[in-house]
């Protein structure tokens, strides 16, 4: 373990948040996940699986989900939903080239070095394997973006600031509680290509004419 599990103290809150306050957002996440990942069969490694909130979606698609997360607090909830292991996403307890698919859903801003997580995904995916990244939109969500008004965002120069921040326009979300790293768009895309993954399709989603979600599907050649 290289870092403390920030989510341990918020596991119960997060479990409730995703299914209640953030339910419409969670529904859009799952819709985008279905669209990008497509159908199984095979094992799909959920990297940063958290409470296992997306395991049922993977199963619906025909995948057999298995999860890895650093937070034992979150894994207490996940254990009821999928087989899980406690582990660091940047040092996955999985052999090389053994999984047919991998996902990171709403996880990339929770790790200090997403590029190293992507490198691990590239390592464990079997040739031809599929990777879906889905997360907050790097350009429109973060400490640099005031989303108080959903169709009139205010963006400031902290877009270039990659540090961990608790600054948020709302006290009710994830960032104000757990904090978040910021990964600018170029860093995200370069992390995927540096991991040897080939980007196949990109998607954006958001209400009120401004995206708040960014996802992509990539393949290990």
């Amino acid at each position, binding site marked *: 373990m290289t870092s403390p599990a920030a989510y341990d103290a918020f596991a119960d809150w997060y479990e409730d948040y995703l299914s209640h306050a953030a339910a419409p957002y969670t529904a859009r996440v799952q819709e985008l996940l279905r669209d990008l990942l497509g159908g199984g069969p095979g094992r799909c490694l959920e990297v940063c699986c958290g409470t296992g909130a997306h395991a049922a979606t993977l199963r619906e698609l025909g995948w057999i989900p298995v999860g890895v997360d650093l937070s034992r607090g979150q894994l207490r909830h996940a254990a009821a939903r999928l087989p899980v292991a406690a582990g660091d996403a940047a040092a996955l307890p999985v052999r090389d080239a053994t999984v047919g698919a991998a996902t990171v859903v709403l996880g990339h801003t929770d790790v200090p070095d997403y590029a190293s997580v992507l490198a691990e995904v590239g390592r464990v995916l079997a040739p031809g394997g599929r990777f879906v990244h889905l997360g907050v939109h790097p*350009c*429109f969500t973060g400490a*640099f973006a005031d989303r108080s008004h*959903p*169709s*009139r*965002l*205010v*963006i*400031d*120069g*902290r*877009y*270039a*600031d990659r540090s961990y921040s608790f600054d948020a326009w709302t006290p009710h979300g994830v960032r104000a509680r757990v904090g978040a790293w910021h990964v*600018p*768009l*170029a860093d995200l*895309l*370069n992390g995927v*290509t540096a991991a040897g993954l*080939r*980007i*196949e*399709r*990109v*998607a*954006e989603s*958001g209400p*009120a*004419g*401004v*995206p708040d979600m*960014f996802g*992509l599907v990539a393949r290990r050649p």
Partner: protein
Amino acid sequence: MTAAYDAHAEWYERLTVDAPPYVTRAREMLVELLGPGADGCLDLCCGTGAHAATVRGTGRAPFGVDVSRGQLRYAARRLPAVVGDAARLPIRDGAVPAVACVLAHTDVPDYGAVVREAARVLRPGGRFAHVGIHPCFVGAHADRRDPERWIIVGRYFDRGRSFDSWSPTGFRNRVGGWQVTMADLLNAIVGAGLRLERVEEDGDNGIADILGLVAIRP
């Protein structure tokens, strides 16, 4: 085919000859993305040939295609160039070692068709360098009057052509600009069969106003 820039060729020529910081930063990014080379390079939507010297600086021999005869009058002094539609290039398949498209993707109605043409004319292993306004932070959906705090309004997904602009002295309110979302831009690259290799963002106040990328024809 009407050429939107015909009526603005002289204005554009003066603007780029003066080399405002934005244009200089775009050129620096182009050099970084293209890298050194020795062969020919298609300057796609070359306009007045404003970036021909930059391409030449990488060691390559630029040649241009643009739809605007008004712009090409200026380009003729800077590089060999022909009149043509970027979505139907007068060039053989697999004939070109490198393609550069600089500050042009919002000037065409279907950038996906242009990138497909670039991929068609590139030879295997050839490089496609794209440099343009940042799709997320520049466009009719972005008000940049306050340089420290940009306002993004809910029309990011409006893909039409727009002349709406926060600035009365810029490009969009004069020539118009097409909105290409980030996903559309990236999907145009990978959808054309190009392999995305590297992406760069640049800005002078922390918010990125230029996005560039290099992709390889496998």
